[in-house]
């Protein structure tokens, strides 16, 4: 039954890709059909995945397509079911949000059709990846996802930015795909078979295992956006249509995480502790650098993209802990780490897509990417502001919202590091926890900046002054996600109980302790060790608020509220330019962590076009400057060398074949 539903989801996605082709260029029809079917696909995915997750069972199906001797195997188990739910959730919301959002493209120079088609194919590819049970089908879905993602990023191709971003994205994900293919190849070489059952049966030596693991880490890491493989992410997400950025950042990265979990925990079999340590360290680096780079951005969507890097880092910290515990045969703790990582995947999908939807709404209303031009938007678009605020709180890992729960679980897992024999690990893991703490605090700082600068204060530009509330569809979409953020923050016990089916399948143990205290108390390791009563927290805050509010309410006290001008220290009236800007807000942190960024900062001389001169500040990315540009230079140089073989003189050409002949003769005789 669940597999049938998942299968239906695939069909709906396919239909949503193909049916609009019949509509010619009647935009309304295209929108209706495409997004309706997309939503249905999402719902079917949620239903199928959810059932599989709840029942904790796995289902198989073999389709008569693919290679003659390797038919494509489909497989649905709690792990893939969980991620199908994530995909489904965001897809549904995107389907609600999309029709209103794409309205601005209808007047645009390009047709609407490619957008809807490739959105559907994008979803189709992701679902296929989740369902695949053999390398061929997996790669099929994976590359379908990549290529349609490319088409979506390049959709507004009149802008140079879009084109270059899309190219970088496609190139990197293609390289990633090759690495993944290679990783599967290694497993298949030992397990002689390309379906996952054979691969899982493969017995690898430590050396080959490490090779396969490294390939998988790199391959999936490129897609997931681990530092330093993240450079495509801040380029691609800002330029894609916002609901696409939401899906890419919220879901596609998760699919990469799924691939990594599937490969490492399911197929690779026995894990080595050093692999876990590497994952942990990379996770820490991604989390910290991600948030630090995010702090320096002033393009809203670019900033959110860097936060995706951060959150993926947090997820990988959880995975790393889980792998370390698993390799030290502490399956219970490994389950805890895995659950934390999975929970954070779900949460990040929710709040990151919520934030991107919010950014989309702002973009549509004020046509502003730049935080420096926003301000005071809360007056024009209060609902969006409210949802965005919830997103900010969740992503900053503040109670009682969902982001906090998963980070709390990660902390709990990290604190069990003392259970390990090895002192090195025992001392490194707490440091990782400290890094996680620093990350959370910086994230909070960053989102105070974002919300404060974008929504509060005075408008910094005419457009943001004139911004009105977005269309109902878009608001509903954001509302759903905001609600889910709260729900998954308030009822973590139930969620953890469900998710723990996955470690039950992968590691053989669930988290029986976690739900022991009833739905009210989340006690991952034991009631004595740590407990978190999320509903109580909400209740407590509300009670305290109520109490204070009732005590101080004007009806009982004869105090009045007057509205007056802001205190201007006796100078002239305040204007928008006197406010703190995003750059100014982040300045102290920039000074403290200076070496982290390549900063070019100078006072520009007074010229005709900008009277009074100006301050030029550009914060780059070391990874881009130190790795990718270098690779590019080397590549072009070697191409120049290789070109010498095509010099143009026919006698030289003939000499080549002459020498080749002589050489071969000399070799064989």
């Amino acid at each position, binding site marked *: 039954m669940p597999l049938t539903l998942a299968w239906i989801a695939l069909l709906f996605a396919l239909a949503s890709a193909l049916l609009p082709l019949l509509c010619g260029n009647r935009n309304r029809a295209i929108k209706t059909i495409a997004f309706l079917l997309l939503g249905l696909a999402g719902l079917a995915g949620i239903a199928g995945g959810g059932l599989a997750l709840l029942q904790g069972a796995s289902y198989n199906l073999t389709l008569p397509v693919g290679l003659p001797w390797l038919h494509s195997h489909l497989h649905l188990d709690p792990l893939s079911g969980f991620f199908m739910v994530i995909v489904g959730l965001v897809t549904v919301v995107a389907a609600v949000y999309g029709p209103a959002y794409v309205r601005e493209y209808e007047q645009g120079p390009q047709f609407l059709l490619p957008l809807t088609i490739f959105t559907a194919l994008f979803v189709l590819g992701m679902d296929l990846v989740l369902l695949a049970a053999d390398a061929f089908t997996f790669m099929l879905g994976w590359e379908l996802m990549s290529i349609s993602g490319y088409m979506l990023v390049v959709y507004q191709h009149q802008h140079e930015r879009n084109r270059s971003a899309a190219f970088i994205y496609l190139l990197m994900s293609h390289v990633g795909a090759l690495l993944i293919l290679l990783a599967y190849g290694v497993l298949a070489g030992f397990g002689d078979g390309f379906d996952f059952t054979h691969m899982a049966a493969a017995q690898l030596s430590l050396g080959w295992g490490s090779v396969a693991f490294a390939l998988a880490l790199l391959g999936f890491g490129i897609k997931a956006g681990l530092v330093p493989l993240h450079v495509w992410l801040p380029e691609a997400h800002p330029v894609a249509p916002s609901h696409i950025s939401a899906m890419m950042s919220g879901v596609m990265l998760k699919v990469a995480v799924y691939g990594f979990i599937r490969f490492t925990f399911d197929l690779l079999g026995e894990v080595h502790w050093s692999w876990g340590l590497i994952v942990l360290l990379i996770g820490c680096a991604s989390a910290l650098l991600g948030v630090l780079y995010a702090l320096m951005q002033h393009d809203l969507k670019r900033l959110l993209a860097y936060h995706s890097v951060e959150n993926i880092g947090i997820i990988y910290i959880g995975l790393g802990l889980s792998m370390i515990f698993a390799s030290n045969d502490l399956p219970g703790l490994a389950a805890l780490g895995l659950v934390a990582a999975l929970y954070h995947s779900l949460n990040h999908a929710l709040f990151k897509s919520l934030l991107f939807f919010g950014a989309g709404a702002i973009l549509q209303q004020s046509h502003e990417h730049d935080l420096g031009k926003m301000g005071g938007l809360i007056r024009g678009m209060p609902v969006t502001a409210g949802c965005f605020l919830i997103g900010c709180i969740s992503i900053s890992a503040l109670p009682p919202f969902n982001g906090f729960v998963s980070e*709390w679980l990660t902390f709990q897992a990290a604190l069990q590091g003392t259970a390990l024999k090895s002192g090195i690990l025992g001392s490194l893991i707490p440091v990782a926890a400290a890094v996680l703490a620093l990350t959370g605090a910086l994230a909070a700082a960053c989102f105070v900046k974002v919300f404060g*600068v974008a929504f509060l204060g005075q408008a910094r530009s005419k457009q943001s002054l004139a911004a009105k509330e977005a269309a109902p569809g878009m608001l509903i979409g954001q509302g759903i996600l905001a609600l889910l953020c709260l729900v998954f923050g308030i009822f973590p016990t139930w969620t953890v109980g469900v998710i723990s089916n996955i470690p039950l399948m992968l590691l053989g143990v669930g988290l029986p302790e976690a739900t022991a205290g009833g739905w009210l108390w989340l006690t991952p390791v034991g009631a004595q060790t740590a407990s978190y009563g999320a509903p109580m927290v909400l209740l407590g805050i509300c009670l305290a608020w109520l109490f204070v509010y009732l005590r101080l309410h004007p009806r009982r006290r004869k105090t009045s509220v007057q509205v007056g001008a802001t205190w201007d220290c006796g100078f002239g009236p305040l204007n928008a330019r006197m406010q703190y800007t995003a750059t100014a807000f982040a300045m*102290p942190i920039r000074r403290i962590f200076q070496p982290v960024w390549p900063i070019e900062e100078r006072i520009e001389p007074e010229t005709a076009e900008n009277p009074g001169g100006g301050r030029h500040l550009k914060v780059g990315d070391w990874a881009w400057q130190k790795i990718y540009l270098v690779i590019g230079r080397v590549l072009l140089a070697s191409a120049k060398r290789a070109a010498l073989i095509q010099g143009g003189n026919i006698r030289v050409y003939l000499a080549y074949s002459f020498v080749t002949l002589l050489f071969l003769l000399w070799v064989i005789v």
Partner: protein
Amino acid sequence: MNGWALAVIQAGLLAFGAPFLAGWVKWVKCKLQCRQGPSPWQPYRNLSKLFRKDIVISEQASPVFRMAPYLVFSVTALAGSVMPFVAIGLPTSAIADVIVLVGFFALARFFLALAGMDVGTAFGGMGSSREMTISSLAEPAILMAVFTLAMTVSSTNLASMISHLLVEPFQLYPSFIFAGMGLLLVTVAETGRIPVDNPATHLELTMIHEAMILEYSGRHLALMEWAAMLKLMIYGVLIANLFIPWGIALELTPLALAIGLVAITGKLAVLGVVLAVAETSLAKMRFFRVPQFLGLAFILCLLGMLSHVILEVR
């Protein structure tokens, strides 16, 4: 049931005792500086006066501005209610462990900073920016410190931490010394005392906390101030009960509770004196020196953790 009642009472005690601690510190400070200071009860007078005053709100202010004081106060109060103050083993302490506690402070700070940016003045933005910068350095230090304890007693639950320390035969934990010192430094930074911030001044170059609440008046201001005092109180109790746990009531008998009350009052009084001495003897430091200050705190906490892992794990 009476556990819950006790918990509520304890929370009330904490909340209403907070202004006295603030007043006490100020009073001791004045005495140390040979000044005729206000009585320790002065903060109560200020608060009640503010509660009665009218409110002026900037026309730039958004709902966030009006919401913030209530939220900040109620979250801080909730944080106070989960603290083991006079007794442990109360049901409320299961609501939140020490990480959640830090989370509460972060939530309060989040809205405080937003409120600071709301009306769009230069002061507010500056205050928020500085506050978030400092806190983002302070938070990991706090967590490191409490992690050191948590790993020693293998629990992040405050109540079980303290009880563990009391029940186990006494032993000297070198890690605790580092962690305690670190936590002291962080407390100074977090509660906006000299040398990081100066609660007594409105000089725009130095102020942080005051800058954020500059636009507030009347009961809003009162709530903000009260929340700040409460925060100081909570940190005091945290340090006192974690590092000098003796005296706190293990079981809920009147006698034990009385002893606990006396004990905690004594500890807080001593802490207040220590704080006053520190504030008198130190000078407010430049904002960009603060990171070094917090860096020291962080190093101390890290040392604490490492010494725990290296020396104490058997």
